[in-house]
């Protein structure tokens, strides 16, 4: 009888704990969508990875860092072009992700900067990237490498050009 009670308690505890567990492992509070990177020229020391962060939780979070075995260091950067001048800055306080909101890391904006590439990123390859969040912990994704000059949808030039996209 006693052992049955213990069993029931354990089962109850497990059941109670499982949504939290699922949150941490199965369906994280932050979803990382559509990761991709551009191929880099030979000898290039740096590369950039892009992705969308979808905060499924009710509390704001922050992307504080990242790491990958393809680069000596990985930083979160913001790029701006103002008055024709390109500026790139590391986000020292990380990148805020509002509760229930999404943040897009994309060309011309926020990006994951890979510094000290161990070898060029080649189109068709993939590499691992681990993102660290203030609350959601670490999330690892596999990043596919697209052609140089590619955009998120994979076409060279992407949205640009329109009429002149029929490349021969």
């Amino acid at each position, binding site marked *: 009888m006693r052992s049955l009670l213990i069993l029931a308690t354990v089962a109850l505890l497990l059941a109670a704990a499982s949504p939290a567990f699922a949150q941490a492992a199965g369906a994280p509070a932050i979803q990382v969508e559509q990761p991709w990177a551009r191929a880099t020229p030979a*000898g290039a*020391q740096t590369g*950039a990875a892009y992705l969308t962060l979808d905060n499924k939780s009710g509390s704001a979070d922050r992307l504080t860092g990242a790491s990958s075995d393809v680069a000596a260091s990985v930083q979160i950067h913001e790029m701006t072009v103002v*008055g*024709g001048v390109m*500026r790139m800055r590391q986000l020292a306080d990380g990148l805020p992700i509002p509760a229930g909101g999404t943040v897009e890391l994309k060309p011309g904006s926020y990006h994951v900067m890979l510094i000290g590439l161990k070898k060029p990123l080649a189109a068709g390859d993939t590499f691992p990237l681990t993102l660290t969040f203030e609350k959601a912990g670490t999330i690892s994704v596999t990043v596919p490498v697209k052609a140089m*000059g590619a955009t998120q949808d994979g076409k060279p030039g992407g949205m640009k*050009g*329109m009429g002149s996209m029929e490349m021969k």
Partner: protein
Amino acid sequence: MMRARHWLLTVAAGLAGFAAVALCVAYVASSGAGQGLGVNPVGGPFTLVDDSGATVTESTLAGKPSAMYFGYTFCPEVCPTTLADLSRWIELLGPDADKLNYVFVTVDPERDTPQAMHDYVSAFDKRIRGFTGTPEQIATVAQAYRVYYKRVPTADGGYVMDHSAMIYLMGPDNRLVNVIGYQETDTSALAKLRNLIALAPSS
């Protein structure tokens, strides 16, 4: 407190950037006025080293219009994107593309040796040449082309470069004809390049 400082720094940096651009524009406007209409003082003499190690000057480009872009190889995004765009446009221009010079000039001579430039431009259309030089030579060419660049230290002890992110379209007389901005459409960029090709002396 930190936030306020950060904000102030950002504003200060932004103002400095605007001031730099405004100064350039003011300079261009004033010197242009002094020399009469149609004369634009962007472009001038320079001595640099190409990605094969050979010395190059403004006369190396003489006779053909040029598309010149100032950047650096450590740049993860704007520079490779722009050079990939330029490579695609060169392809789309067909045989006429050979009527222009294509030059990528570094604003980071410290890291961008001729070999580094060579490795880098090799990833793009073979007609794009890489130019580097001593810090003084780069300062001279940047001044001649009114290019803004600034070294900015990073927290990890490295540095990045702020720089003008547009392609300068120079006539055969090495004077500015037009610019192609970052992420300009293929249609617009190709029209500007074709206008530049039209200025090429017929051979």
